């Protein structure tokens, strides 16, 4: 057993071997694995085939690896993802995972400030080069001379590139860091972009949500720790274990959807009976995330369960992809009445012009025939 491993630290904290194995079992759940990940570690496959395989795999990782160094950058964000993480109480899965990582720099959680904090970050980037995971919260504004988001007088684009250059993987948390989020909403004054638009030479893992689900975020980090590689990702770089299904696929109101029973307003009979919220603007059918299964507040509830339609916060363009309370079947753009009337008028005028020209031609051809106009 190597010195300085996570297990060592836990043991120093008075955790017995039995408790350690229990923790490993819980943490295996944090991986949220629905299938064997595509990591080319034969040992991993073998371990997974055995009963308690995943637990053993986790135990082995914790006994051989030091805590995962993490550098956390915040740009154009609200710190909601951080907030969601820190609000989870002991002893949750989230908390257990947080014990296995080592946050070297985090603007919101850091005691240090100003030049001190910046120095700590630089030191961490050097010390853990190639080992740390860079977590990014908030969108980046690389254009306009980077004037819209600066920290210590430096632009967000530069700060991201600097920290990403030495990272072993980059995890973008929340809709802002993944797809631009709220800052990118029309008219997008800052030219906001997500991490994957700028970092192309490192593995980027997107954990969107507004905020990201804490269990999904920590599960992803933990996957990096245990397997040393990102989980399988979808086309938007989201971890498949957590983003393979839509909210609609796993929604508790789905039977009502199938039966065509909808709430028409937030306080009608249908709403009280728990009917489907499609008509109230639910974006569940096109939203991939784990809200309906992992839920929030330690599995207590999630928006749709509480009576609010899904906003689609884990998808690109979520602010401009239709009104939150507008049914998804409604068009996103519709011509203004004046424009529609204009199109009609143009049609009428063109039609009249064409008809007149035709009639004139007809009269020339058959001058004697009588017509009533």
């Amino acid at each position, binding site marked *: 057993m190597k010195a300085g491993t996570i297990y060592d630290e836990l043991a120093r904290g008075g955790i017995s071997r039995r408790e350690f194995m229990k923790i490993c079992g819980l943490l295996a759940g944090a991986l949220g694995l629905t299938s064997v990940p595509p990591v080319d570690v034969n040992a991993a496959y073998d371990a997974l085939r055995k009963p308690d395989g995943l637990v053993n795999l986790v135990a082995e990782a914790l006994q051989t690896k030091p805590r995962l160094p993490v550098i956390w950058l915040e740009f154009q964000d609200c710190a909601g993802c951080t907030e969601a993480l820190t609000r989870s109480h002991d002893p949750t899965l989230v908390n257990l995972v947080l014990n296995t990582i080592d946050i070297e720099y985090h603007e919101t959680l850091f005691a240090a400030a100003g030049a001190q904090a910046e120095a700590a970050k630089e030191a961490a980037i050097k010390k853990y080069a190639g080992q740390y995971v860079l977590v990014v919260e908030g969108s980046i504004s690389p254009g306009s001379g980077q004037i819209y988001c600066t920290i210590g007088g430096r632009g967000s684009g530069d700060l991201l590139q600097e920290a990403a250059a030495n990272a072993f993987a980059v995890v973008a948390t929340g809709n802002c860091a993944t797809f631009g989020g709220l800052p990118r909403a029309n008219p997008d004054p800052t030219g906001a972009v997500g991490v994957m638009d700028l970092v192309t030479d490192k593995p980027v893992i997107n954990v969107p949500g507004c905020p990201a689900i804490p269990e999904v975020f920590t599960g992803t980090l933990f996957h990096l720790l245990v397997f040393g590689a990102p989980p399988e990702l979808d*086309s*938007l770089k989201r971890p498949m274990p957590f983003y393979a299904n*839509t909210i*609609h696929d796993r929604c508790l109101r789905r039977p009502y959807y*199938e*039966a*065509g029973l*909808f709430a028409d307003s937030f306080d009608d009979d249908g709403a009280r009976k728990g009917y489907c919220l*499609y*008509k109230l603007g639910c974006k569940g*059918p*096109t939203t991939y995330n784990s809200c309906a299964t992992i839920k929030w507040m330690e599995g207590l509830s999630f928006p749709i369960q509480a009576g609010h339609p899904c906003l689609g916060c884990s*998808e*690109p*363009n979520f602010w401009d*992809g*239709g009104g939150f309370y*507008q*049914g*998804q*079947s*409604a*068009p*996103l*753009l*519709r*011509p203004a009445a004046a*424009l*529609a009337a204009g*199109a*009609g*008028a*143009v*049609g*009428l005028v*063109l*039609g*009249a012009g*064409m*008809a*007149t020209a035709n*009639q004139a031609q*007809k009269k020339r051809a058959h001058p004697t025939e*009588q*017509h*009533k*106009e």
Partner: protein
Amino acid sequence: MNWLAILDFARGPFFEVALLVFIGGLAYRLMRILLLGWHFDRIKPAGSKLGGALISYLRGILIWPFIPWVRNTFSKNPVIYIAGGLFHLGLFAVIFLDAAHILAWQSLLGFGWPSLVTPIVDWLAAIAIVAMILLFINRLVNPVLKLISGPAEWLNLLFVFIPMLSGYIMAHHLFFAYEVNFSIHMLAVDILLIWIPLSRISHFMFYFFARAIHGADFGKRAVIP
């Protein structure tokens, strides 16, 4: 491929343009037909034009669909008559009485109306789809129909069939991810909107004019066709 971006395009700018083409195109067609010129009709009125038009509507909408055997077309080819009728009924129910579509109408017009329960709309849609297939086969095998069917007729069938089928597939979450089905459905609807003014599908509008004019002619002559 990011299907959500395609979906946003199909529900957004493409839909807007398609709708404008639809409105402008139908206005153009209407004007062209209204200004075709009318022949003098020197017959002395023997009856009411308005009454004739009314009777014509009532027969077209209330009588023929429900007691079709009074018509020649029915007794000659009942299967096709029924398929045509059910297709139009299904189409009407899907477009105007389906909950999801009413939401679309509501956003366009500013007001909505009660929907028919989903399972009924669903069955009518399925029936309409089967009816379309029957009509297609009929067009394919009937020698006369085959003779008078140009590319436009086949395209008419195709451009109505794809939105119907993709909508059905989407409503039942079959084959592809929801956003993929949704995108295909919306793209097909946009294309249909542009196609309608260019094609004989515009009969959905001209039908009412034609009935009124023929009805008035018959009414004036006091004949009941």
